[in-house]
């Protein structure tokens, strides 16, 4: 069910949650760090992060005893995928053309 994924717009409609998100965008951080940097209690921060996780705006990873939250690299991943396919096509076209034009035909000068 796709519907279970929370709407990121809804998730960011809350100004406090936006500040929590902005802190995560600034660099991976723990609940404790966020609560220290913002006027928000730790339980409240956890709750906001829960919503941001559901909305797939942030990711969490375990580092030792700490859980670090970081921005989900959706935009970057998306761009990488598109560029990867773009350059693969380019190199495939390139290989076809390079091998088709080598060795140069009799009428062409074989300098290239």
């Amino acid at each position, binding site marked *: 069910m796709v519907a279970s994924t929370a709407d990121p717009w809804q998730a960011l409609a809350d100004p406090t949650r936006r500040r929590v998100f*902005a802190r995560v*965008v600034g660099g991976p951080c723990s609940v404790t760090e966020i609560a220290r940097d913002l006027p928000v209690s730790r339980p409240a921060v956890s709750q906001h992060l829960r919503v941001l996780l559901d909305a797939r705006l942030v990711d969490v990873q375990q580092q030792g005893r700490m859980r670090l939250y970081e921005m989900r690299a959706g935009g970057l991943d998306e*761009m990488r995928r598109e560029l990867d396919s*773009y350059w693969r096509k380019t190199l495939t*076209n390139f290989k076809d053309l*390079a091998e088709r034009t080598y060795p140069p035909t009799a009428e062409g000068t074989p300098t*290239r």
Partner: protein
Amino acid sequence: MSTTPQDQTALQVDIVVDVPVEHAFHVFTDRFDEIKPREHNLLAVPIERTVLEPQIGGTVYDIGTDGSRCTWARVLAYEPPHRLVISWDISPRWQLESDPDHTSEVEIRFTAEAPERTRVVLEHRHLDRHGEGWQSFTSLGTGEGWPLYLERFRAATQRQANGASSS
């Protein structure tokens, strides 16, 4: 911050072609027009041809069927027959990026493996530079980064939703 993996901000593609390195380099640079995929056209009209100016300081541009022009890369290094570096002045939304600080770069290296075999490695790196506009904002006003990020995110989630609903 130090945990950001390198591979997240760069991608690498390579291929081996059965031609000498000089030939490989010149086909790539002289005939870029013929090998560049035509999709992702930034012009309003179909692309007539693409020009790669073979010198440092040169540019790469598309010319539309109506004569319009779109310059989308700068030649940063031109070292025949081994290396070519161009900038990538296109935003993640496939629009021209006018701020060089928000552009990435593409390096193509040509290495001879045999007299008639060349390995071509293409690396597109510093992809995160495109994101600085929306990653660096911390005072959440109504800056430009915010809507941009959301729009991109929406596009991604919609694609994801479409993919999921087909199952």
